[in-house]
């Protein structure tokens, strides 16, 4: 009874497709990939229909007992393929999962089942549900493949390039140019910078450049003519979508009070002048490396 109840809960292709299409749209926005695993039973499906159903139920029950609440298990209409969507996980975690369940199955004596699998990490939305299934089915169709094989499909791994707005607010014109050169030379995977420079806080706030939903890196001095860095900081941090701003504050003040004040006000990085430009580059690279899993 228990087994039947479990099997009844598992989704089919058609139901999962709707979920998949919704998740696909969130990949770029949330910068979190989805990973799909497809499994195929290699042996024991050549007996009677009853035997086949028994093995399918056993695989389904086993997989259902191993997935987490955030993962989605489904069975393809042909009956001998299973799919699992791992939300918020990359291929690395999916592979570790497969190795774990394969080693359990290899040791199981009562119901010997042999599986093979394919992993597809999806980092863009240029894929349809049908294409995903067909590609994985084709990859697993090779009869020469041995049991416990793990194939990887890399067709949807390419992340889209995201344009990030960058505002450099620095009074010293020469240093402003240096910062612009440095950021223009910075090679960030999957991101490209759209740089604008300002010589004072007022001219930055007057422009509507920062009033969009786009990710926005602000590199500013604490002391600026007309409106200083702290006024800009307070303005940006009280905006409804304040989290899109990554704020780096540069300052000549190298004491804890000033740093605490800046961090409590909402800066993401406080850099004491004079600083090494390589250090600035490294900090920016780390900041953007955190955006994609």
């Amino acid at each position: 009874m228990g087994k039947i109840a479990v099997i009844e809960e598992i989704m089919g292709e058609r139901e999962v497709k709707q979920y998949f299409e919704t998740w696909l749209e969130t990949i770029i926005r949330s910068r979190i990939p989805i990973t799909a695993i497809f499994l195929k039973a290699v042996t024991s499906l050549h007996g009677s229909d009853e035997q086949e159903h028994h093995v399918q139920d056993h695989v389904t029950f086993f997989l259902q007992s191993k997935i987490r609440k955030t993962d989605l298990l489904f069975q393809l209409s042909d009956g001998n393929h299973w799919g699992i969507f791992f939300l918020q996980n990359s291929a690395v975690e999916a592979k570790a999962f497969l190795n774990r369940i394969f080693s359990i199955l290899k040791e199981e004596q009562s119901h010997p089942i042999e599986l093979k699998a394919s992993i597809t990490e999806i980092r863009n939305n240029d894929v349809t549900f049908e294409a995903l299934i067909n590609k994985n089915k084709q990859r697993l169709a090779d009869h020469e493949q041995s049991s416990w094989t793990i194939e990887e499909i890399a067709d949807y791994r390419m992340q889209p390039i995201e344009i990030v707005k960058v505002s450099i607010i620095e009074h010293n014109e020469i240093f402003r140019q240096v910062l612009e050169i440095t950021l223009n030379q910075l090679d960030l995977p999957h991101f490209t910078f759209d740089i604008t420079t300002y010589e004072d806080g007022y001219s930055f706030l007057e422009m509507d450049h920062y009033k969009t939903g786009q990710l926005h890196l602000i590199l500013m001095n604490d002391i600026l003519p007309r409106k200083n860095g702290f006024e800009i900081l307070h303005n940006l941090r009280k905006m409804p979508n304040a989290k899109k701003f990554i704020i780096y504050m540069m300052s000549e003040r190298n004491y804890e009070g000033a740093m605490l004040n800046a961090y409590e006000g909402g800066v993401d990085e406080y850099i004491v002048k004079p600083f090494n430009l390589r250090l600035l580059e490294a900090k920016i690279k780390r900041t953007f490396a955190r955006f994609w899993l």
Partner: protein
Amino acid sequence: MIHLSVSFLAIVIVALLAILGLFTVYLFIQREREASFNKNRKSYLQRSTQLWNVYLFEEGLFSVRLVPRSRADVEAIEIIFLSYLKNIASPAIRLEIKNFSNRYLKEFYKKDLASKRWSTRMNALYRIADFGMDELLDTCRSIEHKKISKEERFQLLKIYSLFQPDLFTEKLKQLQDGYSESEYRRLLVLLDDDLFIRFFDAFQDWSLNIQFALIDTAAVRRNAPYVDKLKHLLSHNNAEIRIRALKGIYEIGIIDEIEIYLPFVSSDVWEERLMAAKIFKHAPLANMYTYLEQLLQDENWWVRSQAAETIAEARQGGERLQQFIQYADDEYAVDMAKETLMRKQESR
């Protein structure tokens, strides 16, 4: 009554007008010269800033257009170099600036050092230190024998500290009481670590002002090796030196053996008790609580306040203060504990 002839008056007026005219012409020429100077400086900045940026930050080639042809060009280069030095920490750029200055700016500053104008000489001395122009060291030494101001002599000391540390040490020994504590601090902060440690090793040989400056500079530089040097000063017979050493250790924030600070809990000098309460911030509250409770009941308000703050900032410090309020008899200490707790809750 004074009688003045019309012709005399006319001569006076014409003479005055002539002087006024000459003065106006002089002002006009000066203004034109200044405008032309500013124009040339701006022109260098416009045509060369980008070249400098490409040369230094994009591994571009050195262009002869960067070499200064006039005093206005030198001023523009000063603006560019100071922008780099003030904002960017890079040994490679510092070296480029030094080499360029030694090669192309040396003659300009050499001439400035011989100027009769104090401001011109001072500017040259500042730039020699800023740009690391060690090739002008001999010229600097030669002007020392002339009649120069105290500020220039101070700037010369700064130059010696950068280019010839032994000469700097020798000159400082001769000038033990010549400058204020803050001026000595400005000199000592520039020294490299080895020389600074050498200064510390000869601590007793220096005047009180230099000794104070040494301790304060060690705290600002925040290097771990200085903690041992400061710890040695905790047994000094001068209370001010002991207090400053405690403050320095607190600011560096490395407390490896707490036992040496325990005698200060019962010191006769309240500033030492205050510093002990501060230093205990860097140790686990469980180990320090007994001493902090003693300091919380100190006769001095500042000590009580600091002890309460140190307890409150620790994890479970609030609970300790609550318990203290329940059982303590000292009403001043209880008030302080309540006040600190209230402040802590408000700041959340």
